[in-house]
């Protein structure tokens, strides 16, 4: 009795007092490790694998990174390594670096990514960027830096596309981004609100988030199976400003974020995810499409309209970011063709929030979208083993990049076109038009 029992009860009180937020953060970290990565004993994990708009995890996210690291070790990871980035150092480059130096890229970052995938180890990317960081900076410099990243990232990206290594993207709020998304909330409340939203859309608040995710993925698998049985030869999109036919290649496969690697690990590529997607035929896209949400690529692209003929963009206009867009479309031959078509109902939980996040990972799961650029080998029958030539012959597009653009709305109708030319409704007014 006495002192010891008092200490014990204080510990118990502390554990009870662990805030709701801390509990959710721990559940989120566990979800990322168990469901996102499905970490296997003996794997190494790289947190912060570089992306176009970030060289690593924002240093602001250290508390979450520590929890992820702990969970990864507890799941048997043999080593966890983190690539960090301070976005202020990124900004300082645009403010002070010589203008002819933007092709320089820290290659060791993409090399680390390559090594991880080559060894079938695991990596995490983080989509947490202040969309206004580079506002007003020269978009030519930004494009030069992006293209340099694509070039250096290619070997690593090719490994991923061939099913090597595990890889997942998650998101988390950072202060400057929260200010942009929740301008109407008092500045002290914005981060709390943002975390709350992320816990919601990632199903973290469920008592057992791991089971909740299994159920969610099963629903998406049922929808994709339904479309796979249909073997449509094309999709037809209709909405204000949109009249577009997207041909689908023979042997295309509809998928959801559920990915099985070559070494047999099943994991979820995106947290959150609501989409089902496949790879379109690179030469069979015709018509016009208007985009429904702005796209933050460090340069904001907004009011985008594209016209396609035989798969290729023949006219492009944007109200914002046109200069960057025109450079982007000329990156390489595949840059003006499609590499993904994805379906998301307008009633998806993210869409229903009615918030524009200025973040590809979240916004793409609020809306039907298409991607310019590289096609998805895993969405073609036997695609993972196809050579470049075989993939192209099957209708797959190849490009240095893959960028999702949001096109969905509550006014969008999508039909599936059957072999015999008959049309069947897939979506009406932005919602699923079939029972799966």
């Amino acid at each position: 009795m006495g002192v010891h029992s008092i200490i014990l009860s204080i510990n118990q009180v502390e554990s009870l007092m662990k805030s709701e937020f801390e509990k959710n953060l721990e559940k989120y970290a566990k979800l990322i490790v168990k469901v996102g990565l499905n970490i296997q004993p003996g794997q190494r994990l790289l947190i912060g694998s570089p992306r176009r708009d970030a060289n690593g995890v924002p240093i602001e996210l250290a508390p979450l990174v520590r929890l992820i690291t702990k969970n990864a070790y507890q799941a048997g990871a043999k080593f966890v390594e983190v690539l960090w980035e301070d976005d202020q150092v990124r900004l300082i480059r645009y403010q002070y670096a010589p203008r002819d130096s933007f092709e320089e890229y820290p290659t060791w970052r993409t090399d680390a990514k390559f090594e991880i995938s080559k060894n079938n180890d695991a990596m995490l990317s983080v989509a947490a960027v202040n969309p206004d960081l580079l506002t007003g900076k020269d978009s030519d410099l930004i494009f030069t830096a992006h293209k340099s990243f694509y070039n250096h990232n290619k070997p690593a990206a090719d490994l991923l596309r061939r099913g090597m290594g595990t890889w997942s993207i998650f998101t988390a709020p950072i202060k400057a981004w929260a200010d942009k998304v929740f301008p109407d909330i008092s500045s002290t409340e914005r981060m709390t609100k943002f975390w709350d939203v992320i816990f919601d859309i990632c199903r973290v608040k469920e008592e057992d988030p791991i089971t909740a995710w299994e159920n969610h993925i099963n629903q998406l698998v049922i929808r994709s199976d339904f479309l796979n049985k249909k073997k449509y030869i094309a999709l037809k999109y209709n909405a204000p400003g949109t009249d577009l036919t997207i041909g689908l290649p023979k042997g295309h496969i509809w998928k959801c974020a559920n990915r099985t690697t070559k070494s047999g690990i099943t994991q979820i590529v995106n947290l959150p995810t609501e989409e089902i997607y496949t790879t379109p035929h690179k030469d069979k896209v015709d018509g016009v499409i208007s985009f429904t949400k702005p796209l933050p690529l460090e340069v904001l692209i907004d009011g985008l309209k594209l016209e396609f003929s035989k798969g290729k963009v023949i006219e492009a206009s944007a109200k914002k970011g046109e200069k960057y867009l025109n450079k982007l479309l000329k990156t390489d031959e595949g840059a003006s063709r499609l590499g993904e078509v994805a379906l998301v109902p307008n009633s998806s939980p993210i869409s229903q929030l009615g918030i524009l996040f200025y973040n590809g990972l979240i916004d793409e799961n609020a809306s039907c979208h298409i991607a310019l650029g590289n096609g998805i080998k895993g969405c073609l029958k036997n695609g993972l083993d196809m050579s470049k030539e075989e993939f192209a012959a099957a209708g797959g597009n190849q490009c240095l990049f893959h960028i999702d653009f949001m096109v969905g709305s509550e006014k969008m109708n999508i039909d599936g076109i059957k072999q015999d030319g008959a049309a069947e409704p897939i979506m009406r007014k932005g919602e699923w038009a079939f029972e799966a």
Partner: protein
Amino acid sequence: MSTEFEQNLEKFAEVIIKVGLNLQPGQRLLIGPPIFAVNGVSLELAPLVRVIAKKAYQAGAKLVDVNWNDDILQLIRIQNAPDGTFEEYPKWKVNTAVKFAETGDAMLVIYADNPNLLMNQDPEKITTLQQMAFQNIEPLMNYVVKNTTNWTIITAPIDGWVDKVFPEQLQKDRKFKFWDTLFEICRIKNEDPVSAWKKHVNQLTSRKNYLNRKQYNALKFEASGTDLKIGLPKDHLWQAASMKSQNGINFVANIPTEEIFTIPHKDKTEGFLKCTKPLYFSGGLVEDYQLKFSNGKIIEVSAKKGEDFLKKLIQTDEGASYLGEIALVPHKSPISQSGLLFYNILIDENASNHIALGRGYKFNFKDGETLTDEEFTALGGNYSLIHIDCMFGSGEMDVDGITKDGEVEPIIRDGEWAFTV
């Protein structure tokens, strides 16, 4: 309006870029290559790193990249990683730095760690992690010891460390107090710190040139508890502050720096020494220790605290019980006068005469950069995975130089320089 602290931070960054690295237009700069068991720049030093990055770009750097490190992850690893995994090491960090050296780009080490971080953790795991760090940074050290390119080591206060150095200050004042002391000992508070540094470097260079002209056969150290004779090899070269990299850039490798140092002949140290400051090295603390040498090798070790740790260190490899460096520092150097123990070799070594156990530097020989490993050993150079400074200078110490003819000349008396330049 910027605060005085912000102004000092800017001046500090200016000294680092202009004096320390002497960064050249078109160079890339890597901030935070791994050193010993410190894997990169602490996240909390972002405000300093940003100012350095700005100054680097303004000096014409074509790319600045930062190798960040969150030391809490080290703790999490020790507590949670599966057994048998502690030999994993992020080799890419070393490879990155090696590439910078190979291409003649610049490197800035920010050497700051929290001496209390790993207290009470499994010592076996800590030892394994240290051994892995030593082994893996070896390829990088091979470039550093040849001054292939311009590199500088600095430090800055971080959480935990400030508590260790300023325990008697109020918690909230400790970091500020540390910064203030650091600005002081790095001559940042001067109105024009870059000029102040040039003057300081010139002083050290004149003394270094004097000692190089002398080419003493040996040095003799005497103080209470110390009677040590260190033989110097033929063609040894004293270095101080400013060195020239193989790609022709004059740089200052340590900020702060007060020392003039050279390489001992590895087989020619005789006698004993008593330390005057504790030895702190990545997690281990050794206090009140004495070393006895014969034919260059440590033959006896005793310490009031940390004796096992010290014994383990000198058993790292064959060269760990021989000397790689002897450095002279006057007792009235600003760091010495602060009377503080920083538990950080970069600062503490500049408070006192010291020897280093372990690896010697090729640049401490005439034309040393071109020596092969075999030639280096044949001249009396020591090789080891470790390089650890042991402080034994004091206000009572006398140092003599012994010429080739056996004549004895005073170098230091009562801790201060005994010759004029």
